[in-house]
């Protein structure tokens, strides 16, 4: 069983092709024919270029929590004659195949701890997510492309953080060194390549060492849970911070820890399916009640909830775990440049003002 292999840059595609015969493979790729265009995780196809040069626009969340998934299909069956008796047939759509995400980033993998808490760790276990989660391995890149919007170190992670990952990818001058971090990952590397030579191994070790020392971001989240509670009622604060918010769903959809979903039954005539789809707390309909009342009628309440959820409710509920992995996607993609670090950072300033 191979523990560590070297893949030369020009061999990456053939290695991935081989790998894809062993396991369902997802890679980060360009979503548009423009090298600076949007990127996201997609199922591997031969010849498809891996977009390793930057963090993906969309997180890898969709591998485990698709934007829309069919939970079940149903069909009413009618008796041919006594049409009155119809019976409901339900088809369970749970399925999970062994999957490898090649080229994840530490922040993205770390984000899964939040999703795990919600979907897998009880008291209610979501079988769809959990089955996929169990069957999915992550080959994670030691991240050397952090930018001014990254702040993973501020929220408990780090650019070389391998927690939750099964393989580590280190990008060297002429290729990639892929190292299995868990037993189950080792067999994946069989027959994919040779062990790296000493010089490359040395370079890789230096990179890991160097990246591990980096502190990415300077947001102080200490005490933010409490500060948030104090700020909760201070409308002025939220007016000041997020008046420019458009109430769109970009931040939540690109966010790797946002997991909110909606369930709808879509039926035509006698057949239908139950869909689970991403929802966004930025949307009016998210909290719209059947009575027509909406407890969060404006973007202020909605944005406040997003901040509160990540930096107050989740940590208070799950022993200090933050609902944010510091990937910075919401800052990068926000159409009006709202910076969540500012909103969280200012929570503690002059709380009593």
């Amino acid at each position: 069983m191979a523990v560590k292999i070297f893949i030369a840059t020009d061999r990456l595609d053939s290695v991935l092709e081989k790998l894809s015969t062993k396991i369902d493979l997802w890679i980060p790729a360009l979503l548009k024919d423009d090298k600076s265009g949007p990127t996201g995780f997609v199922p591997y196809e031969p010849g498809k270029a891996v977009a390793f040069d930057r963090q993906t626009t969309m997180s890898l969340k969709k591998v485990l929590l698709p934007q829309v998934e069919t939970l079940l299909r149903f069909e009413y069956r009618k008796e041919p004659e006594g049409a009155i008796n119809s019976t409901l047939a339900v088809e369970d759509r749970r399925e999970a195949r062994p999957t490898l995400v090649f080229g994840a980033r530490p922040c993205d993998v770390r984000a899964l701890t939040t999703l795990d808490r919600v979907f897998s760790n009880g008291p209610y276990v979501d079988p769809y997510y959990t089955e996929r989660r169990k069957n999915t391995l992550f080959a994670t890149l030691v991240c050397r492309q952090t930018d001014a919007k990254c702040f993973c170190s501020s929220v408990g992670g780090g650019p070389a953080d391998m927690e939750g990952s099964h393989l580590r990818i280190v990008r060297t001058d002429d290729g990639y060194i892929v190292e299995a971090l868990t037993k189950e990952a080792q067999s994946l590397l069989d027959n994919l390549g040779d062990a790296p030579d000493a010089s490359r191994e040395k370079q890789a070790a230096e990179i890991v060492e160097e990246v591990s020392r980096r502190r990415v971001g300077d947001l102080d989240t200490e005490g933010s849970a409490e500060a948030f509670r104090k700020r909760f009622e201070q409308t002025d604060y939220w007016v000041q911070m997020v008046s420019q918010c458009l109430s769109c769903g970009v931040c939540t959809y690109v966010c790797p820890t946002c997991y909110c979903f909606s369930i709808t039954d879509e039926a035509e005539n006698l057949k239908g399916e139950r869909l689970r789809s991403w929802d966004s707390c930025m949307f009016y309909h998210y909290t719209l009640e059947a009575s027509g009342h909406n407890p969060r009628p404006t973007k202020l309440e909605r944005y406040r909830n997003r901040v509160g959820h990540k930096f107050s409710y989740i940590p208070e509920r799950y022993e200090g775990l933050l609902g944010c992995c510091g990937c910075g996607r919401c800052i990068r993609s926000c159409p009006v440049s709202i910076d969540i670090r500012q909103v969280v950072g200012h929570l503690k300033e002059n709380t009593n003002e």
Partner: protein
Amino acid sequence: MTDSSPRSSAPADQTAANTQGIKIVGFLCNWCSYGGADTAGVCRFKQPTDLRIVRIPCTGRMDPLFVAKSLIYGMDGVLVSGCHPRDCHYAVGNFYARRRMEALKLFLPFMGIDTRRFRYTWVSASEGQQWQKVVTEFSEEIHRLGPNPGVGPRSGENSKISNGLR
């Protein structure tokens, strides 16, 4: 009836083979064109069978999005028909419709949807023969165009293309 009557000028009955699968939806105003289609029926003017008619009160009720929705979700043809301009039962409904339908007609091809699959026309309740002509010509056009390729699969989940560049 003489030989030049509309009955005999209608096409021979469509064979099962070429009607199969082609579906055309018609949005007809209740006062004129639906009546025109009735008149055509009363006069036994033979027509192709592909058309399925939705009765609407007035072409003014026609949201262009009904047409867009039908074509996007795979109807092979969409026909909108109402009272002749100035004859609207509601006086001006078809004036609104005319602008909206025309704008859509010009817009569809930009999105890659064949605009020949959409036609709007004015047929009065007395014009059974005109209705026969409209239906026959439009159906023939759609048969020539064949099934609507649509814009993509109606899957619940991301389409195959959405997993990246093709």
